[in-house]
């Protein structure tokens, strides 16, 4: 039996090639080049990246759905490439496309899948918890994206898994469902599940994740807790921005130090960016005072994970 300090999932130097690809003269294309990560019990580990970065491929290798071309993966002490039934019972999977048969009805399908486990979670309780009751007997092809998503989440939880893979869990969810799903994810984390999720939404990672791997172009560009990522990027760049609203057509740039850039993003709305220091705020306040101008709004933006992500992943220019 593994002790609880051993990561539930360890991926070390994962390599995945696809092809042969005709456009590359029949050569193989490396889509994952050496991703390493680990996921612990009682934590939400997020793989954050743009579409096509390699997040889904990475977790599908960990789920045993894709064969890898290099590196090692250990999931609950086993190699998931040929997973035993015992391992599959301990791991819950929610696929990006749901993987639900369109002609099935949620309740019947969940009862069927529950039968694959020795001691499944109560189907009724999951139906209640995820609000599936109103459409539990509607064929899945007639459900909305968010409804399908919740059925797929319920299906992944039926076996009371120790490890839970969620591929883009918030895709297609309306704000209420999103809150229900996020609350459930936090509760499962509290229960001690190792939760591995992928997302291209910074907000999801910021709200849910204990630890974030930023995946870009088949490699891990950075990793850390959300505060770590934010502070590392802030100290690397020291870059903030200040926005304020006032009368249109002003030129506050003349009063500020030259390395700061001022742009009027729309009439009367100004953004100052660069290495802002307290003295710069004083310059700006003096400029207002000299003209007896009061800004109608003023905001100092701290760096968001989005800035970090864009900076680290280098995706701005693409």
């Amino acid at each position: 039996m593994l002790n609880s300090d051993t990561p539930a999932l360890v991926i070390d130097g994962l390599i995945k090639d696809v092809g042969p690809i005709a456009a590359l003269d029949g050569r193989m294309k490396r889509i994952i080049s050496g991703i390493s990560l680990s996921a612990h019990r009682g934590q939400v580990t997020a793989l954050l990246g743009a579409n096509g970065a390699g997040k889904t491929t990475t977790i599908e290798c960990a789920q045993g759905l894709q064969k890898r071309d290099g590196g090692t993966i250990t999931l609950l002490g086993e190699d998931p490439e040929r997973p035993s039934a015992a391992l599959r019972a301990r791991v819950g999977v929610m696929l990006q496309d749901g993987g639900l048969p369109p002609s099935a009805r949620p309740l019947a399908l969940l009862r069927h899948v529950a039968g694959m486990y020795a001691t499944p979670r109560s189907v009724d309780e999951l139906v209640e918890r995820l609000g599936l009751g109103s459409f539990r007997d509607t064929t899945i092809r007639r459900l909305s994206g968010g409804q399908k998503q919740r059925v797929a989440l319920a299906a992944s939880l039926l076996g009371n898994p120790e490890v839970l893979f969620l591929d883009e869990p918030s895709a297609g969810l309306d704000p209420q469902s999103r809150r229900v799903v996020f609350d459930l994810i936090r509760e499962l984390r509290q229960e001690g599940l190792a939760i591995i999720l992928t997302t291209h939404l910074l907000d999801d990672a910021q709200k849910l994740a204990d630890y974030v791997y930023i995946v870009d172009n088949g490699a891990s560009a950075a990793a850390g807790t959300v505060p770590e990522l934010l502070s590392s990027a802030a100290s690397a760049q020291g870059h903030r921005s200040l926005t304020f609203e006032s009368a249109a057509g002003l030129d506050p740039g003349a009063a500020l130090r030259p390395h700061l850039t001022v742009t009027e993003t729309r009439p009367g709305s100004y953004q100052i960016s660069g290495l802002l220091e307290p003295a710069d705020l004083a310059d700006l306040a003096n400029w207002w005072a000299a003209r007896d101008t009061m800004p109608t709004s003023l905001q100092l933006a701290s760096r968001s994970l989005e800035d970090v992500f864009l900076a680290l992943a280098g995706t701005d220019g693409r």
Partner: protein
Amino acid sequence: MSNSTPQSRSTAEPTSAGHGPAAGGPVNAALPERAPAERTARTPAPAPLRSRVLRQGRYETLTMLRNGEQLILAIVLPLLALVALSVLPLLDGLGASRINIATPGVLALCAMSTAFTGQGIATGFDRRYGVLRFLSTTPLGKAGLIAGKVLAVLAVLVLQSAVVAVVALFLGWHPPLVGILLGIPLLALGAISFTALGLLVAGTARPEATLALTNLLWILLGALGGIVLPPTRLPVVVQDVVFFLPSGALGEAMRNALIAGQLNFFAVVILLGWSVLASAAAVRWFKWS
């Protein structure tokens, strides 16, 4: 820019094999508030293998029986063929009554309908919608999924055979007892060959192509493949070929068994050959996604 994240790279991020988490210990163990909670009591376990496969078989059987188009292919068209062949003079002069010659072939047609066309189409669309991938991550697994499909094909085939046999008996069918005992395993062998072929098509072609191909082959093999009409009633050009096709082999084996009570060894070898080849090809080339 992407290389200038000093903290996270140096302290937190595993970079290369040998220095990664496996060798260097937990990567993100530094997190403070994590207290792995009270989950030591239970380790989730799979249901027993037999129960998983039986469940999947039952589920797939009910899904097939609820599908109207498949029922037409599985029951209505074979019954129409049975009635037509017993009414029209297509099978006269072959040394047995029309219904005695027609019934074994129609039973073989049922196996092709369900195992090849019906099951192939269903699997093709399951693959498209990711159902195969999702179920293969549950304790059912890939092998259990395939076993469940084979069970469902056999279960539906039992129902089809019962319906066809009852109608045929009313139309005057008189099979020899030894023929029935031979016919049951032969029909099962045929179903296995056609299931393997159906899975091969469904696992390698797009579902729309699978739909077109399995329906087209059902019609072509049904009409000219030696399954319903004995080879002697087919155009001369195909007569020698059909004995090597799964359709002709199954049709002939069923007729030899249910008309004369004889086992056609050659046809059995051909069916076994198709089963082995198609299974090996499906294992090799089946794409789950």
